């Protein structure tokens, strides 16, 4: 009876740790990705296999939505991937926190900030301010 109890306990602990183990285990190599995933994550093709597993997992989640993005959003996504992957986990966490905080700012205020950024980019690139920012590399 005691042996059975230990077996059940061991199985239960293993099951509980499984989500954690899944994060620690190797995820997918570049060659294992689907064509859609490879298209979305193309800028990271050469370094994909060296990326931290957790980042790979997050990017694969994000890549699921890539086909539904507008061409403009796809362009931004790919332009920012490399920079995003080079951030430290702490920087990415901080960026998420800032983004979430900015999302709670009233829409008018957010629009003002966006307008200001457009003007700065226009001044830097020489393109009229009405054009949306396509690249931020």
């Amino acid at each position, binding site marked *: *009876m005691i042996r*059975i*109890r230990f077996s*059940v306990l061991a199985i*239960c602990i293993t*099951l*509980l740790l*499984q*989500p954690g183990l*899944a*994060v620690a285990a190797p995820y997918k190599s570049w060659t294992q990705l689907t064509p859609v995933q490879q298209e979305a994550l193309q800028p990271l093709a050469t370094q994909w296999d060296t990326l931290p597993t957790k980042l790979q*997992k*997050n*990017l694969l*989640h*994000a890549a699921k*939505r890539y086909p539904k*993005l507008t061409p403009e*959003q796809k362009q*931004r*996504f790919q332009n*920012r*991937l490399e*920079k*995003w992957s080079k*951030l430290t986990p702490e*920087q*990415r966490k*901080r*960026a*998420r926190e*800032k*983004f*979430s905080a*900015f999302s709670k700012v009233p829409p008018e205020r957010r629009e003002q*900030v*966006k307008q200001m*950024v457009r003007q700065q*980019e226009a001044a830097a690139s020489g393109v009229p301010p009405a054009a*949306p*920012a396509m690249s*931020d590399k």
Partner: protein
Amino acid sequence: MNQKFHPEQIKQLLNRSLAMLDQPTLTRLRNARTQSLARYDAHSAAPAFAWASLWAEHRHATDSHRKSHYLAAAVLLVALLFSGAAYWHHTADRDVSDVDIAILTDELPIEMYVD
């Protein structure tokens, strides 16, 4: 025949009759009484042993069932915890990915959010 006897009188009559019985008859009566009492004791003791036996078996079975119930409850609890943990991990990952893709596709440059 319709004469009424007091209980005490009946007792005296019986005692007098008993004194008039011969020794072999008394011996047979005593033996018959002893055998009868022996059968009565055996008969009344048997159910007590039977109940004791049944109670012991019931208690053993109850303990066994109780352990099984505890084990089943523990397994169910762990399964629920596992499901909850897995769901929490999945939801947390999805939330992070939603924010990631929003940052990567937002109109504002990524530098806005990076220290």
